[in-house]
């Protein structure tokens, strides 16, 4: 019996994957469980196993090309078996190959979009109605439903109001028109979106469009925290405790004391988590990823530092397993090493807040009427106003500030 090899869903947020390389070629013998290809998802590179044995008869999506989840990418069958029925559904698009857009090429269509636009567009009645109301051409939308059907969630990223049916955003058509670039007069190059870039673009747009953010900034005296870090580096030279680790520890204690911040807005209720999972924003060459430090409440500063180090190293090497970058309840993003004084971060839904850390700098400060040199750091908390109010965020931030200024509390037993 012929086995359809389809693009697997390798993470919760994955909608399409790119074939990095095929480890088997057409005509090769394949055993069930054998690794046949490497797939790049929006977050990591993952090996794909064959689900059955036979001969790899057909490769439909070549290395370097992308396909939506569930899309047929290959066929495993007996050597002499007729596989035309398995191939029939994709016959129309099988011949298409990806053409990387050359410099100045004005067509932005990606290969997967071409596959979708070939023939009739499948869309749910609701998606059709929304698309018509918003003036969106459904043939330009990639469907994530069964068989590539366009469903409501595929439109949500394009029109914030699709999340709540009936609430029209009448200006959207005008806005889309305004955003369309004018006839190209300057030379340019269209770069294909990597799966990660696509995922980031979608998530941040969705977050800014649907989550009402407010921001709180505070300046922290980091003199004692700096001393603590130096002392720990002498104590545990291999570990290299970072400021991020120290700030995470302060955030964890802060969240334990202000659980309302460790929450998600769920439309009809607020879910308050009893466990603290901290996402750590890690910059990568072509995007970013948030590995998650789980169950932090029970961990000492040293444990946090050790685990964070391992997670960050593996994140940079793109070696995280999907479960290692999902499920954060709060995120910390530190751009201090880039000499950023302060910044505001975009919340990673469904988390209720994210803390953005600036650099620590020496500056004149007034202490007991004297001007002295102090180590100061500015941090900005972005909050989902649906879940928390200003005062809630402010008292939490005050707590984190106090802990960083009295860091002995960070090395006491985990609370």
């Amino acid at each position, binding site marked *: 019996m012929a086995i359809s090899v389809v693009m697997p869903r390798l993470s919760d947020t994955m909608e399409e994957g790119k074939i990095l390389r095929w480890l088997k070629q057409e005509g090769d013998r394949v055993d069930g469980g054998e690794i046949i290809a490497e797939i790049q998802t929006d977050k990591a590179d993952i090996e794909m196993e064959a689900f059955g044995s036979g001969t790899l008869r057909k490769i439909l999506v070549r290395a370097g090309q992308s396909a939506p989840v569930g899309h047929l990418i290959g066929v495993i069958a007996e050597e002499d078996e007729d596989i035309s029925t398995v191939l029939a559904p994709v016959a129309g698009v099988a011949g298409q190959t990806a053409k990387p857009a050359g410099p100045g090429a004005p067509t932005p269509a990606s290969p997967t979009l071409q596959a979708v636009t070939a023939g009739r567009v499948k869309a*749910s009645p*609701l998606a*059709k*109605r929304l698309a018509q109301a918003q003036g969106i051409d459904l043939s330009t939308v990639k469907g994530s*439903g069964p068989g590539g*059907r366009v*469903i*409501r969630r595929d439109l949500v990223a394009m029109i914030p109001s699709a999340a709540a*049916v009936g609430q029209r955003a009448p200006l959207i058509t005008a806005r889309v028109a305004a955003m369309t670039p004018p006839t190209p007069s300057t030379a340019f190059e269209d770069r294909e979106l990597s799966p990660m870039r696509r995922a980031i673009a979608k998530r941040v747009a969705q977050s800014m469009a649907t989550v009402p953010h407010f921001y709180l900034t505070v300046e922290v005296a980091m003199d004692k925290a700096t001393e603590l870090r130096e002392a720990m580096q002498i104590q545990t030279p291999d570990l290299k405790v970072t400021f991020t680790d120290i700030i995470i520890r302060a955030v964890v204690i802060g969240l334990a004391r202000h659980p309302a911040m460790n929450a998600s807005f769920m439309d009809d209720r607020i879910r308050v988590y009893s466990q603290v999972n901290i996402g750590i924003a890690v910059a990568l060459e072509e995007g970013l990823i948030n590995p998650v430090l789980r169950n932090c409440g029970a961990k000492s500063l040293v444990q946090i530092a050790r685990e964070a180090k391992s997670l960050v190293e593996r994140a940079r090497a793109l070696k995280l397993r999907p479960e290692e970058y999902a499920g954060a309840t709060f995120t910390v993003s530190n751009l201090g090493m880039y000499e950023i004084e302060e910044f505001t971060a975009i919340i990673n839904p469904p988390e209720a807040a994210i803390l953005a850390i600036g650099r620590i700098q020496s500056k004149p400060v007034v202490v007991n009427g004297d001007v002295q040199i102090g180590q100061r750091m500015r941090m900005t908390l972005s909050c989902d106003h649906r879940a928390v109010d200003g005062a809630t965020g402010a008292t939490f931030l005050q707590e984190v500030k106090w802990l960083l200024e009295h860091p002995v509390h960070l090395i006491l037993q985990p609370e």
Partner: protein
Amino acid sequence: MAIITYREALNQALREEMRRDPRVFLMGEEVGLYQGAYKVSQGLLEEFGPKRVIDTPISEAGFTGVGIGAAMVGLRPIVEMMTFNFALVAIDQIVNQAAKILYMSGGQYNVPMVIRGPGGPAHQLAAQHSQSMESYFYHVPGLKIVRPGTPKDAKGLLKSAIRDDDPVIFIESELLYGTKGEVPDGDYTIPLGVGDIKREGRDVTIVAYSTMLLLALQAAEELEKEGISVEVVDPRTLRPLDTELILESVKKTNRAVVMESGAGFGGIGTVIGEIISEQAFDYLDAPVERVTGANAPTPYAKNLERAKIPSKERLIAAVKKVLAV
């Protein structure tokens, strides 16, 4: 509010209505001396005597016909089927007589009668005694069909059924008799034809009634943990059907799964699914999914019976299918 069983709730409804209206009487197999095959009529013979609580021979066609005649001349009979499967013996009386007399007499005679008893699959009752009989009567104009899933609904709806001027098919369940729930104190009724949102949600609507309602609520609980918010709509009365409530819910969630214990082909789910597809088409984000019994007689063997009857797992899979997750 007292917490009582479904069985006690039915017993209270019968007792209160028999006290309220001397025209109301109960008849059927083992309803009197034996106190009912499932003890729904416990204590009624003692309180109301053998003229109003009548033990009949094993003769469903006969005593159903007697009930219809009594109703035509002004009484309000309640006819108990020991299991609703036995109503098949009386189907000519029910379909060709009870349901049609008002129409065929030009409105001169109505049939204020309740035919009640347990139906649907339970535990190893085998092919002849496990049928979801609502599907057989659903097709017939002139009948009202009630399938309550909770003690509160059972009491309030049975009282409405007894007071109704038309023949009402009132199907209980062996599996529900022992279930408990809050029941309001004192006299209350629940109107026929009014459904109930048993659980509010926003991602998907499950329409389920009777024993399937309990499965739907369990499934909703589990799905909640995965972040899927399920709305459970219990129509309670299948005819007349509260289509408005179902449509409102689907318009909100954009997805529907309809559940029934009987075989799916030509079943209740087909009708409800069709109403949704026809009247809420532009609100649907996925085709309506149905979870029904398999297209086979109900086997006696436990393992095969389990395969025949809809399960929570199949319901959860259907919910995920309409959500495309």
